[in-house]
């Protein structure tokens, strides 16, 4: 048996008004912060998904994205390390298609069914770039979703799977392309995602003898709301009662994360006995079915998509958006930058990537970064690791840098005391107003991009106010 045992999503704080991208445009677009990318968003969704689960029990981590930070270097390894999964974890990057999310999900289900892993975490994240002024730019959103697949105690049993492969030049981005490219939209839809997704769903129905009426919800992850409804109708579903809301107006098309985001939104409202059909497109189509168990009620503490959508901050303008996407030229900063030393980064990966502090076995004091000699009792090499990334804390003191601000925002540098002991100096990100920055405020840790320099993506944990839950 295999199924979903947990889920989690992540939607960045930032929104860009679509009106800034063209006259008459409506609504907002979800945009990753200047210090976020697909890896950091995947970590955030992974943290949410693993809330209440033992991270040591995760046997595999599949990362799915078309926007991995490196052309050669495993992104799943960065995500697995930041999530503090154990070293003997099976990792894989699923990439080069917006179908990567469901390809990874299917692979995780099959891996668990095959008995080679008990739990596999699938994290899908994307921050695809459309050329400035293009339809793609208006549609693409940055977000992440995570699904924990396991063999027992599932909230949703995995049912049937079906896939087709269908080669065509509809949407692509080559090694040289900065932005997504595509053929004429009626070709892309008609001969692409509409035809192929329909074929895949029909194939599944025929192969397993299923009918549309047997499903409580169908999730059709193609990048157009009207086409979703049209497809649902063609396939015999009632769009008004059975089709899962597309989220395209509220969240947007978040690429490889989109099908899993839709699946998570279905799980948020699902009740025991519900049957779900999930179809996704990308040079072919995957279809998977699920049946909800009564364990679904154990996961009602997850931050919901609605929670994320309500907690937001507007980007001040289109040029700021372009700047955050690295599309504006920059002067070299007027101060020297620290050198990059791979050996030092490797040596200190546990304190920086896993955010380990050291707890002195002699006196109990928690220190970050970990020390050799305890500052309190002088015990030497008597430390055990303590993961600080999942601890909440309180703001002890802070400063707001208006001169050396970062990405056009004042930089809040702070000292955080962790609940349960220990202290860290770090930067606060995703504050919504400086008025909320007060001594004693509750904070949590968030994995972020520190810089990209000479093509090297450097990550570090920052602190942030928790996204509000209503």
């Amino acid at each position, binding site marked *: 048996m295999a199924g979903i045992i947990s889920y989690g999503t992540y939607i960045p704080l930032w929104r860009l008004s679509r009106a800034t991208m063209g006259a008459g445009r409506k609504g907002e677009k979800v945009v990753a912060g200047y210090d976020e990318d697909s890896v950091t968003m995947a970590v955030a969704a992974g943290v949410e998904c693993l809330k209440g689960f033992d991270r040591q029990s995760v046997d595999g981590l599949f990362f799915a994205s078309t926007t991995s930070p490196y052309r050669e270097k495993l992104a799943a390894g960065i995500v697995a390390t930041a999530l503090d999964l154990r070293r003997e974890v099976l990792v894989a990057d699923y990439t080069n298609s917006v179908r990567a999310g469901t390809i990874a999900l299917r692979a995780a289900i099959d891996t668990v069914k095959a008995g080679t892993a008990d739990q596999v975490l699938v994290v899908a994240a994307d921050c695809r770039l459309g050329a400035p002024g293009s339809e793609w730019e208006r549609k693409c959103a940055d977000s992440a979703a995570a699904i924990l697949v396991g063999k027992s105690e599932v909230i949703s049993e995995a049912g049937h799977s079906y896939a087709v492969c269908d080669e065509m030049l509809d949407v692509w981005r080559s090694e040289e392309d900065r932005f997504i490219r595509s053929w004429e939209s009626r070709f892309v839809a008609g001969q692409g995602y509409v035809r192929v997704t329909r074929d895949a769903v029909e194939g599944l129905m025929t192969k397993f003898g299923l009918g549309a009426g047997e499903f409580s919800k169908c999730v059709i992850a193609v990048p157009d709301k009207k086409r979703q409804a049209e497809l649902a109708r063609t396939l015999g579903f009632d769009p008004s009662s059975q089709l899962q809301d597309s989220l395209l107006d509220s969240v947007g098309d978040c690429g490889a994360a989109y099908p899993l985001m839709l699946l998570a939104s279905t799980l948020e409202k699902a009740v025991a006995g519900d049957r779900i059909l999930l179809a996704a497109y990308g040079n072919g189509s995957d279809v998977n079915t699920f049946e909800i168990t009564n364990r679904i009620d154990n996961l009602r503490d997850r931050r919901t998509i609605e929670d994320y959508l309500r907690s937001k901050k507007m980007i001040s303008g289109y040029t700021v958006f372009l700047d955050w996407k690295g599309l504006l030229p920059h002067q070299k900063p*007027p101060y*020297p930058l620290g050198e990059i030393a791979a050996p030092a980064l490797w040596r200190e990966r546990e304190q920086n990537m896993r955010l380990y502090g050291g707890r002195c076995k002699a006196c109990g*004091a928690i220190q970050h*970064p970990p020390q050799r000699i305890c500052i309190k009792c002088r015990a030497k090499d008597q430390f055990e690791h303590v993961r600080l990334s999942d601890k909440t804390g309180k703001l002890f003191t*802070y*400063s*707001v840098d208006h001169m050396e601000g970062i990405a056009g925002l004042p930089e809040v540098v702070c000292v955080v005391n962790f609940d349960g002991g220990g202290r860290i*100096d770090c930067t606060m990100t995703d504050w919504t107003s400086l008025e909320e920055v007060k001594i004693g405020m509750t904070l949590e840790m968030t994995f972020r991009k520190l810089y990209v320099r000479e093509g090297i993506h450097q990550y570090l944990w920052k602190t942030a106010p928790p996204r509000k839950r209503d």
Partner: protein
Amino acid sequence: MESIKDKVAIIGMGCTQFGELWDKGPHDLIVDACSEAVEDAGIEATDIQQAWFASLVSGASGARLSSAFKLPYIPITRVENFCSGGSHAFGNACYAVAAGVCDIALACGVEKLKDRPGGFAYPNPEPFDSSKIISELLPANMFAHIAVKYFHENGWSDEEGKRILAKIAVKNHHNGTLNPKAHLHREITVNDVLKAPMVVHPFGLYDCCGVSDGAAAAIICRADMAKNFRDDYILVKAVSFASGSGESRFCDDYDYVDIPETTIAAQRAYEQAGIDNPRKEISLAEVHDCFTIHELILYEQLGFSPRMRGGEDVNAETFALTGDLPVNCSGGLKCFGHPLSATGLRMIYEVYKQLQGKAGPRQIKNPSLGLTQNVGGMVGFFNAAVLIFGNRN
């Protein structure tokens, strides 16, 4: 353990103009400061037997000093302790003279910051983090952390706190106008400070010291030889250093309203000098007002004001030039400027001139004991220096 009190005397000092000295290189600054010191002592450069040279980014190795000032084949050690290198160069020279391994020594500190991009001494990341990614603790941020916490603990609003700090900046700006070698010469008002552009909350522009070029130098000798050079030599009463090992960085019980390294260095300095009541006994102090909050907490840490009550003495103008205990008569780091490794020696220069009665329009009345306090580093890892000097009476 013996005290260094009265074993070493200063017989000559030199200090350059501080400021944005675009037309002076580190060599020029070294030559100007050391020439004045040698001339003031009435010796030849060739009389110097050993030297200590402080620089953070303006010259590696002791040979930087001799290449400029031409001190052939004497032992020279470079000292680097962030912003406190000057005090440490001076202190180590004192130790050598007190130990009797040399009779006449030179300590020189120089910093040529304005050749650096933006005047920054070194890259932003935390210097002790070998992977160079721990958060950017620029000095302004570190001291702002203290200010925010100090305001909070005192129950002050930002406005109340900033008003107290503003008075310190106004005082130091006034003193700077009386000092021809100071970087900045301009009277300011409390309103100027409060309305200045924000740098790092809660600091506006006037809460921050100048980024300057400059050098200072001292010639010291055995105390029993000093009268051979001049009558108004100045005696070293205490040399006290303390370096942090992360106590206030790693422990969540550190309260961020003081710098423990300095408190400990001051206690030891008072013991060495035999001072029981610093508020009464110290005539003047030059302290490390890199940011206004630092001068405020230093009043308390040096025992001039009760803990958390420095603001009352600020309001009473205790530390003004005409007050009971003038602090930063020179204009302080705020107006004299802060070329990192030169600052400690520059502070000693002011105390030396004041104790000799040669401080011109900012001369205070009948000083007998002067203190310098200098610090370099970051929260948890400060290198604190407290030195005390007296005239021969």
